[in-house]
């Protein structure tokens, strides 16, 4: 990774964190759909990036969001989990398509493959987050609706942002 790319990606992470902390934390649709846009940079990091760095970046990003929302490590643990699972999914996709280079991004992969890459990861992240937050089992149905709605919301927003970003 060149220095130019490194700066680009760091700026991207900062931008998404800014979006999350200042805007998205206040936006909740119908009391059900939350948006955790800050996981987008973790998903969009280059596919050949060192896995160790991905894990550490994911932890740092999740931890910052935690500090701003008083959740002490919930976001960090969910984000680290998807950062760990990400390479397996990329590898699997690459194999099934028979591609030589692994790349992520809506332009490199195409819409279908991109959605089938981000959707499971977002679902895992949101499920972990909301299930950890749930404090009694009676809330399970309510939590499941929240997971579904939030996953859809985040996925759509990441696709939109990805469509309108030039890279």
């Amino acid at each position, binding site marked *: 990774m060149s220095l130019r790319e490194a700066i680009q990606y760091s700026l991207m992470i900062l931008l998404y964190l800014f979006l999350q*902390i*200042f805007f998205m*934390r*206040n936006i*909740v649709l119908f*009391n059900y759909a*939350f948006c955790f846009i800050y996981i987008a940079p973790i998903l969009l990091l280059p596919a050949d990036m060192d*896995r*160790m760095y991905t*894990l*550490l970046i994911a*932890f740092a990003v*999740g*931890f910052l969001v*935690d*500090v*701003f*929302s*008083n*959740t*002490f*490590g*919930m976001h*960090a*643990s969910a984000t*680290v*989990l998807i950062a*760990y699972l990400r390479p397996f999914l990329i590898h699997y996709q690459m194999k099934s398509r028979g591609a030589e280079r692994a790349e992520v991004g809506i332009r490199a992969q195409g819409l279908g493959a991109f959605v089938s890459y981000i959707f499971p990861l977002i679902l895992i992240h949101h499920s972990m987050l909301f299930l*950890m*937050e*749930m*404090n*009694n089992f*009676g*809330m399970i149905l*309510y939590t499941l609706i929240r997971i579904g709605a939030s996953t859809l919301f985040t996925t759509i927003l990441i696709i939109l942002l990805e469509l309108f970003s030039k890279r």
Partner: protein
Amino acid sequence: MLQLVDFVVRNRFFLVFVLLEVLSVWMIVRNNTYWGATYFNTSNYYVAKTLAFSNSVRDYTKLNEINADLASENAHLHALVAKLSQTNPSQLPAGYVPDSAFAARFSYTVAKVVDNETNKANNVITIDKGTAHGIKPGMGVISATGVVGKVRFCSEHYSVITSILHSNFMVSSKLVRSKEIGYAKWDGKDPNLIDMIDVSKYTKVYKGDSAVTSDQNSVFPPNIMVGKVESVAVNPNQTFYNIVLKLATDFRNLSYVYVVQNHQLVEQENLKARTIELKK
């Protein structure tokens, strides 16, 4: 030994992953550690400053509602002053001499809400007063319209409050008409509704009755509004009502709150602690 090194090197991603997960889960479970309580929450000076900045924009759009709340509170206080100046405490039993120190045991500090959340399963509020203004963890917090919560962490200039919309928070409350005491506790779903538990089903509970903080509270002054009875249901298997209250405070528009300091709280708690020790 070499095999061990080889194993670590081969599985280093997995090991780092497990390490980070354990670290975060440990932070969640032990959320009252010194580091967690001092730096890694919104009472952190820099975090709170950023949030205050983003909140200041939102505040302008809510000035109308804030004004209305303050005006109605003024009216309520005026009525109270008039009532107090006319009547003597006639309901007191003969021979009971009210202690002026007891009557004046509460003092109030006004604080501005810096950050507010209502949508999570455990909600907290951040305010812009801290230890420098005499605020300590454990103090009660009320607003112009009703009960808000309890102080959890303090830094020098900011504090984090456990909102009433939090799973670990209960308020001892009293129904005004039926004079029945129970606990108000949030079920984690709708930020407008709260459950009232432990009210015996052998008394009559009226719909629309007000629930206020009871006299048994040590944190909140008595007769602070909690909510109004929205619905009452009886479960045939249980001896308690399922009462749902509509919260008096609209938490989405919360802007200014009062931190309540009970000067006799320490004395009261010490006394209680002594009885517990005696039981052992």
